[in-house]
């Protein structure tokens, strides 16, 4: 469940992108959780067709996932399937980040792929044929050559996992209670470990396998996907007729793929790229340019990217470093020192030195920076020092000790601590010691989990405000069309706001999307 600030931001984004009706449907789903069409109609007080259209827009743009569950019509009646809709909050917020996603592809694969991705982002999901139509309507070139170029570019995008096949449109979720009773006990033991909500089950059921997601268009045997390769191996060499039939099938398959398979941007990959970028930027500012280069190389050459660490062999790192600007001049010794500075641990496997690093540490450091900076600007330098001490200690610290270490007068320290506590930045515990008389001691601590949540909500609110102010300025720009000077001033303000929104969104991702 998302917080009210987050919900407001999502609805505001929907309003500015798709208008009030769609935003209303989306808001209803975000607020009420998973709902059926009839429930949405009741909740929004819109007409049946309005809601239907709204849902179609949302599904087209990957903001809503549909799934069906069995429902008994009346007591003892026949079981029918009922379609449910759920809003995908993360995907809605990703709409703020399209310019960032496009920049990533431009840097990696060039402007042609960027244009192709732009089409997908603009329309949510498209088939290859639709992409071709979109491209040919803009250019007057020979459409078949355009088609070839587009196919190649789409394959590059899919290969880089920037683009994927859309998930299943409406998976059917069978209720677990109706399964056989024989294995019930075993299942109940298992379900303790992994109980998924209906929404999670739907997401899992809708998801394609890795091979399916990134299998490219088969073009009459010229380039075939991993899946098709696997099929081919099953055919024995002597069985020629069968093989021909299969080839024909592939052609048909390719045609079907081009007209029917829907493609969309793979947000997961982009989040991952942005995470890497944020880590490299942080390390670069802390430890210098070379450290940034080495970290980038480590992440890129990491062969097993597990949940919370990257690991790569020295050879792999070296090769990746050489490919980077400024990497040629780095010696092996220098790279080793930098890896050490980064806090990597090394191990030897199969005569190869491997370096391992917890990416989460860098993310945490970025998060700390963000919150500390907030404390500095809201509460001042002394509060900043106190807050940093408490973050560093990570446990309860007594007022006097805090005052001593931070060189803040006891009374002042007390005041600062109280203010921080009052604004939910700190957790406080009162301890009474009984000695000569009763003495009250106050212990303080940063509860990261709840504070991070608070800061995240603050960010949602700030992003919402920026978004609203931008919309307001756009309105004003329309009003003052005649007055050039005012218009120019408004344009400048809008640019500042848009840039700030991108920055606040960077911070948002740091606290919401980069959590592993």
């Amino acid at each position, binding site marked *: 469940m998302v917080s009210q600030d987050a919900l*407001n931001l999502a609805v*505001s984004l929907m309003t500015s992108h798709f208008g009030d009706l769609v935003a209303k449907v989306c808001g209803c789903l975000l607020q009420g959780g998973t709902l059926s069409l009839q429930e949405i109609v009741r909740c929004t007080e819109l007409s049946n067709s309005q809601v239907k259209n709204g849902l179609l827009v949302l599904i087209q743009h990957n903001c809503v996932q549909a799934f069906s569950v069995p429902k008994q019509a009346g007591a003892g009646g026949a079981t029918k399937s009922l379609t449910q809709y759920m809003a995908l909050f993360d995907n809605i917020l990703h709409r703020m980040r399209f310019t960032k996603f496009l920049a990533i592809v431009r840097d990696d694969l060039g402007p042609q792929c960027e244009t192709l991705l732009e089409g997908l982002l603009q329309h949510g999901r498209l088939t290859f044929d639709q992409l071709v139509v979109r491209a040919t309507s803009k250019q007057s070139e020979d459409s078949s050559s355009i088609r070839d170029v587009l196919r190649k570019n789409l394959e590059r995008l899919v290969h880089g996992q920037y683009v994927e096949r859309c998930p299943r449109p409406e998976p059917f979720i069978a209720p677990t209670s109706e399964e056989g009773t024989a294995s019930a006990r075993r299942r109940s033991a298992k379900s303790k470990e992994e109980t998924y909500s209906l929404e999670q089950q739907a997401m899992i059921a809708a998801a394609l396998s890795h091979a399916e997601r990134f299998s490219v268009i088969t073009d009459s045997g010229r380039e075939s996907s991993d899946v098709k390769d696997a099929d081919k191996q099953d055919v024995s060499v002597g069985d020629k007729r069968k093989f021909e039939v299969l080839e024909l099938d592939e052609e048909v398959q390719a045609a079907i793929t081009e007209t029917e398979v829907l493609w969309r941007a793979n947000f997961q990959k982009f989040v991952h790229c942005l995470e890497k970028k944020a880590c490299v930027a942080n390390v670069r*500012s*802390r430890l210098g340019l070379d450290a940034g280069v080495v970290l980038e190389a480590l992440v890129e050459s990491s062969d097993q990217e597990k949940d919370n660490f990257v690991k790569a062999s020295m050879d792999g790192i070296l090769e990746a470093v050489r490919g980077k600007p400024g990497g040629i001049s780095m010696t092996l*010794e220098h790279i080793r*020192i930098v890896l*050490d*500075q980064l806090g990597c641990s090394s191990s030897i496997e199969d005569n190869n030195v491997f370096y391992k690093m917890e990416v989460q540490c860098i993310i945490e450091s970025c998060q700390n*920076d*963000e*919150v*500390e*900076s*907030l404390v*500095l*600007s*809201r509460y001042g*330098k002394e509060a*900043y*020092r106190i807050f*940093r*001490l408490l973050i*560093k200690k990570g446990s309860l610290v007594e007022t006097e000790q805090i005052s*001593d*270490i*931070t*060189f*803040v*007068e*006891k009374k002042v320290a007390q005041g600062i601590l109280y203010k921080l506590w009052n604004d939910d930045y700190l957790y406080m515990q009162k301890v009474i010691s009984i000695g000569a008389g009763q003495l009250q001691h106050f212990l303080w601590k940063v509860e990261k989990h709840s504070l991070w949540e608070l*800061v995240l909500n*603050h*960010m949602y*609110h*700030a992003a*919402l*405000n*920026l978004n*609203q*102010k931008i919309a*307001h300025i756009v309105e004003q720009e329309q009003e003052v069309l005649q007055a050039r000077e*005012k218009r120019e*001033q*408004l344009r400048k*303000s809008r640019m*500042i*706001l848009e840039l*700030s929104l991108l*920055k*606040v969104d*960077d*911070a948002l991702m740091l606290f919401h999307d980069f959590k592993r």
Partner: protein
Amino acid sequence: MSRPSMTPQKRAQPDSQSQPPALPENERILYELIKSRKNMGIWTADMKKETGLQNIVVTKALKSLQNKNLIKDVVNVHNKARKIFMAVEFEPSKEVSGGSWYSEGSLDTEFINILRKMCLKHIEELKVATIEDIWKSISASGVLKVACTMQQVLEIVRALALDKEIEELKSTGVGEFSTVQTGKVCYRSLRGREAPRVGHLSSIPCGVCPRISECTPDGVISPKTCVYYNKWLKLEF
């Protein structure tokens, strides 16, 4: 039976140096009470409670004892209004005085700032330095009139690290760390490299807005009418 002989006077006898000259009864009782509290001292109100003497008597006796240079008044860091008395031979404890960084019951900011500046300067000169290096360097410079201990320097340096003026590192033993033993904690200046970074949220008005909790899209306080925004964007219509 030795008990009857253990009168207060006799118990104090071994410590003949601090044996007070013959004092009137009231002063003697108060003096012994004050002295028994050693370096913690005692608050006048507590004296009255414990001795049962009258206000005026206590005040008079304390004045007399002060004149005889037997007791002194000390500022209590926790409560400056509470007058605390202590026998002259004791130095106030850390709990009373606030520790080495306090003088007259308040933080000696002047001394702290001088020491901070010196530590920063010496760390910058030394590039990478251990706490011993910094302390030696400061002592050798002879700028400080009062000697400072290594502990004091360490406390200052740690606070500088909290301010992100410097950073605390472990020496790798190579490169710029070649002068420091591997694995040893050392300090390096952060000037020009990482001053407290301005966060993304704190760089916009909403990040530091005191009224953010009352701000709603269509409320009295809203981004559309926000004065902080207009100030920030220099929009005045």
